């Protein structure tokens, strides 16, 4: 853990959570912008080579999600790792020590219900809560964003239904907000029926909590928004929040050997060596 992080500068750790409505680990501009923000937050905590760990639990630890994470962060200035609870048999590790040594813990998407159930079985929730209080940034998208709240709207059982999260943040969150109209409708109904209000996040919109107070909204794609959703006077109100735009960084320069390989491949194609 870095000594020049937020903790050392301020004396007391700042509790930070980044909740994202939805994104992928691709090289498209909005995805690059999201990864840049994750790297920046990790770097503020961990310095030049922050430790970033993915918990792909909600997906059942799919190779796809893990590989996507490494392809996004593997070539960057950080130490990426994964804690795959379904694969510990082949790669044992001390979960608590590993997680508490991170600068940022990223939780991938999938089934919110399974995420919470597997975490409970492995006693992960208390470790994450401690990590948060120690200043380790908690982040995630979709189920990995809703898990930090008291409740979310999940399709873990097929159709969208309310499910409980860890409750580090008060209120509720609904992800893929305008991208999945049936999820938004279920959320508005649930808040109308007494579920605590909260936020709606479109894909590529995010909310960042830093210390006490209200979160700040960010967006990596024009038109993607964060909404405050609350019940007042018997009605559910939905109001968009002003958001800071996250520009996509230039694509990372290709590594010398990869660039060389592509040059040769192009030359061969031209010469008709390859189909």
């Amino acid at each position, binding site marked *: 853990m870095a000594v020049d992080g937020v903790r050392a500068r301020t004396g007391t750790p700042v509790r930070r959570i980044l909740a994202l409505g939805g994104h992928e680990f691709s090289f498209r501009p909005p995805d690059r912008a999201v990864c840049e923000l994750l790297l920046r937050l990790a770097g503020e905590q961990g310095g030049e080579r922050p430790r970033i760990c993915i918990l792909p639990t*909600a*997906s*059942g*630890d*799919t190779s796809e999600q893990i590989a996507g994470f490494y392809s996004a962060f593997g070539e960057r200035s950080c130490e990426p790792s994964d804690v795959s*609870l*379904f*694969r*510990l*048999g082949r790669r*044992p590790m001390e979960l608590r020590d590993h997680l508490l040594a991170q600068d940022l813990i990223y939780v991938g998407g*999938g*089934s919110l*219900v*399974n995420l*919470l*159930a*597997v975490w*409970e*079985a*492995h006693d992960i929730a208390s470790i994450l809560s401690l990590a948060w209080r120690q200043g380790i940034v908690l982040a995630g998208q979709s189920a990995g964003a809703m898990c930090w709240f008291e409740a979310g709207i999940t*399709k*873990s*059982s*097929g159709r969208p239904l309310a499910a409980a999260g860890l409750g580090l943040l008060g209120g509720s969150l609904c992800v893929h907000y305008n991208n999945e109209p049936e999820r938004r409708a279920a959320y508005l109904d649930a808040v109308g029926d007494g579920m605590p209000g909260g936020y709606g996040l479109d894909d590529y919109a995010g909310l960042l909590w830093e210390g006490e107070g209200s979160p700040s909204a960010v967006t990596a794609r024009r038109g993607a928004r964060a909404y405050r959703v609350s019940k007042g006077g018997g009605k559910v109100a939905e109001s968009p929040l002003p958001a800071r735009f996250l520009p996509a960084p230039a694509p990372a320069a290709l590594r010398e050997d990869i660039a060389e390989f592509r040059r040769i491949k192009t030359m061969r194609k031209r010469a008709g060596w390859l189909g």
Partner: protein
Amino acid sequence: MDMAPRQIVAFGGGGFSMESGNPLLDDYVLGLTRAERPRVCFLPSASGDADHYIVRFYRAFSAHRCEPSHISLFRREQGPSDLRRHLLSQDLIYVGGGSVVSLLGVWRAHGIDSILREAWESGVILCGLSAGSLCWFEEAVTGFHGEAKRLRGLGLLPFSNCVHYERGAKRGEAYHRFLREGMCGGYAAEDGAALHFVGPELSRVVASRPQARGYRLDVAGSRVVEMQIATTYLGDRDAVPAAPLPEALSTAPAA
């Protein structure tokens, strides 16, 4: 009408997951159904519903010999929406290996634990290997991650269980220690051996490898008594076929 017997076949390890090209244990559990085209549902929950595992199941349990299906609890938007109805309509439920801790957590979250009990009581045959074997017992020894640990299973069978019980394996020592510390007595099975329970009683031990064995373990005072159980190698031409088993056979220890 007779009630179908409650049956569980707990593999120490084996079947399509571990014994590519040796279908003896899988053939055995299919035979127990006594159905011409048994309905077989695979639960890969302990692996996190790994795609490659599901593909291997469909290869081993191809549609010409049974009616295969699977339930992915990580992708509920696909597959049967009424889990209970689907599971209760099966002849055989086959549980894959992986993390037994995660398995039990996910099952509880979706109410699968009580559905499986109901399925067992109504005569659906339950089987599985590794995590898919440990889960049926009162207590289990898991060595999936780091040090061997003791944990509670679904408790359909009032015994303890230890899988991959190979000679010299660390989990064997741990099992003996847990027994001395008060774990209930139970059974262990080596890779290739399977414990076949009818009701709550061990009916027989079968094996896909000539040398694979099952064991009975009990505590007498402060001593653990381990007995090898006579095991039927399913590859023998005169092996007793998967005959109907009205009552538990003896569990006479082998010499």
